[in-house]
């Protein structure tokens, strides 16, 4: 193993005194994470955890690597070799890419020149040499069972290379190793998520200020992104978009078009902002004009579902209880049905994913854990006419919530409601 770095050392000495205001976590937070993950590894009999690059799905699919190294942001490909004992190693394509935060945590950073499996394999052989055996159990995070990617996210060629270099190793799925440590947030993580939610509310304010008849939707969208980036959040970030005349809303898009808005239009969305990778979410419908009466009625049912879900989103309750609460909120309505979408928020696709009132791809057993203190979710029951299964016919208002000892706490500060721009 090469000589270890001094913590905080940057590759570019000329750059050191610029003190870039790049958000980063403390060493105490690093140690907390590393020890929690190592406990999981020990329980699972894993000698070394490996994560390899996949910046897909708004960088969410590289979140375990970022959780352990702080490498990442705006499609920075990265990898990690994280042994049960000894020095973890972070990887980037070259020394321009591991960023400013990672050197404050890692004393071992290496370049791959895009050959991830080779570089990871080389480090694994060193770990094996240190352990005095090459039949290590290697957990690869993202091999299968990733949230929203149940077939996994790790490139086949990289896995093959690791197998080739470590032929006597036992390769197992390591996706679950970071899953539960990440499920419960530390105070530092909650502060980052709060910053994300604060930025989201600036984005919503930007939408409210600029969405008017005659304005291109792309201009509104651009204003929201501008507000987010200017305040220190990063891209790519998810900001989904459905729009058009109420009752004839477009399909869900992940970016607005240049369509010019008209009176009577509605914008429905999912608004996220990434702050050092940490992502809250809010959903905030906006009407150009007064809110139609049926939308008002739907919103009333939807808020009943939000309240009911929040009521049971507290320590000790099961996720099934939250699902039932959201669904049952509209039992008395003949016209409208409510249902729960809810998922963890944090570095990406945090556990669990509940869609259409059930476990979403990669979630596994929804009853394996209960709702626990300091878990953070976006809770977003939707409401739609009972005779429709089209998302654009429905309505969703949502916020990110932190589970506290006494119940769910909304992280947003805005008043819940539909926005009407008259």
């Amino acid at each position, binding site marked *: 193993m090469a000589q270890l770095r001094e913590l905080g050392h940057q590759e570019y000495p000329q750059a050191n005194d610029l003190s870039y205001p790049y958000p980063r976590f403390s060493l105490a937070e690093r140690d907390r994470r590393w020890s929690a993950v190592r406990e999981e590894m020990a329980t699972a009999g894993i000698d070394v955890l490996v994560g390899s690059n996949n910046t897909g799905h708004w960088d969410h699919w590289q979140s375990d690597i970022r959780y352990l190294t702080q490498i990442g942001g705006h499609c920075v490909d990265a990898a990690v070799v994280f042994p049960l004992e000894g020095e973890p190693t972070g990887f980037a394509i070259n020394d321009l890419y591991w960023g400013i935060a990672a050197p404050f945590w890692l004393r071992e950073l290496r370049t791959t020149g895009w050959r991830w499996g080779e570089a990871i394999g080389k480090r694994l052989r060193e770990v094996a040499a240190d352990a005095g055996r090459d039949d290590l159990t290697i957990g690869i995070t993202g091999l299968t069972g990733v949230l929203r990617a149940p077939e996994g*996210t790790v490139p*086949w060629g990289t896995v093959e290379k690791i197998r080739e270099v470590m032929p006597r190793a036992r390769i197992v799925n390591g996706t679950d190793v970071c899953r539960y440590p990440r499920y419960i947030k530390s105070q530092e993580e909650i502060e980052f998520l709060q910053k994300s939610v604060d930025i989201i509310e600036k984005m919503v304010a930007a939408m409210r200020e600029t969405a008017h008849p005659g304005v291109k939707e*792309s201009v509104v969208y651009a204003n929201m992104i501008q507000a987010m980036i200017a305040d220190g959040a990063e891209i790519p970030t998810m900001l989904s978009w459905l729009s058009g005349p109420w009752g004839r809303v477009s399909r869900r898009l992940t970016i607005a078009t240049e369509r010019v808005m008209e009176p009577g239009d509605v914008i429905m969305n999912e608004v996220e902002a990434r702050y050092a990778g940490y992502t809250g979410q809010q959903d905030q419908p906006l009407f150009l004009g007064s809110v139609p009466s049926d939308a008002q009625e739907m919103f009333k049912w939807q808020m009943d579902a939000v309240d009911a879900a929040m009521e049971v989103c507290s320590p000790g309750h099961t996720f099934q209880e939250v699902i039932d609460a959201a669904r049952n909120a509209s039992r008395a309505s003949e016209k409208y049905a409510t249902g729960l979408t809810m998922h963890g928020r944090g570095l990406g696709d945090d556990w669990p994913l509940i869609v259409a009132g059930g476990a979403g791809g990669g979630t596994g057993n929804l009853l394996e854990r209960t709702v626990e203190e300091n878990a953070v979710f976006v809770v977003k029951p939707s409401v739609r006419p009972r005779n429709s299964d089209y998302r654009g016919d429905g309505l969703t208002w949502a916020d990110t919530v932190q589970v506290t000892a006494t119940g769910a706490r909304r992280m947003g500060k805005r008043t819940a409601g539909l926005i009407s721009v008259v």
Partner: protein
Amino acid sequence: MMPPSELPVPRFSLAERDRRWSTVRAKMAAEGVDALVCVYHTGHHNHWQGDLQYLSQIGGNNVDASLVFPLDGEPTGFPINPFYEGPAARDWMSDFRPTRRAWGDMIGERLLELKLERGTIAITGLRDHLRAPEGIVPSGTLDRIRELLPQAKIVNGTWICQEARMMKSAEEVVFLDKSIELIERSVDAMYRTARPGVRESEVYAWMLWEQVANGGDMPTLLSWLSGPWGRVSQRLLQATTRVLEKDDMIFNEIESRYGGYCAQQVQPMCVGQAPKDVIEMFNWQGEAFEAVREIMKPGTTFDELLEAAKIVGKKSDVYESSLTLHGRGLGEDWPLLMGRYSPEVGRMQLQERQTFIMKPTVRKKDAEFRGEGIVWGDTIEVTRAGGRRLGRRPRAFLQLDDV
């Protein structure tokens, strides 16, 4: 629901579809491939789903999708949910099947439907992908396809679309021209907003505002180095909230995506007046740029381009120059020339309608860091008369007189 035809998004014609499909199918036939499979991977600024977007128009801002493209018969697109394929794809195709993220299952079922149990299935991105030589296909998806078609022959299909994608059609060049227009709006925004006392993130945000407001897609590459000359930061992929100071440098690579198509420019700026040696280097860089541009015509080899770019080192005792050049289009268009490359690539000849970002660097002969070099770059179309700059702005090192 509002029909997708009402949404004003960039769209290619049916003639363009037919041109692409027939070119790719000819290549498939020549290689003995029965079906080409593109597997979801929105990584690396969505570049790694370029083949899929090329054949289907499915894509945009992290839209995960897959595609089965048979030699004969209807292609099938696989979005995660109904209607998630984007508005333009339905202009070209009608068979869309939601996967609910069980990609391998759905791809495998479609291949079985095509009776390709014993067929030759090429998977694009299996290996040898640009900037991803180990490939980009998720291991579990490949395993599932193999499970469902154990007797099929699975081969690497990375090269099948790349060759077709290297040669741009007139419609593709129009999209790249539009991308350049958005990039130049970004440059204008940088010039308008970068002032002492302004946060770098604000400048960056306004640059992206111009793109998104005017029909550009996300995510897009906009890299960033900044700080006082001689102490410029490491390369970041996004500006921080650092506050700009008088005479700071901003170096960048600016891309924009229009209908997925990415051109690139590199436009240095000084938030004040650039030092004399910077301007001297910039002038040398112009000489290297022109030396390469002039010979970017059919028949010139990549080796000849690289050699032409070394002109500064031959004429100056202090400075040297070298070329970075790579294809621009839907993402990682072939080839990528920087550092190592194979001799075969060096001997290859340019062809008309190829488009590249061409960005020679000039640095002192004893320089160690990227931030010590000066780069200016534009996207170039290969024509018989030499390289045509897609950019319209005059070549200049941007400076401010009023700070």
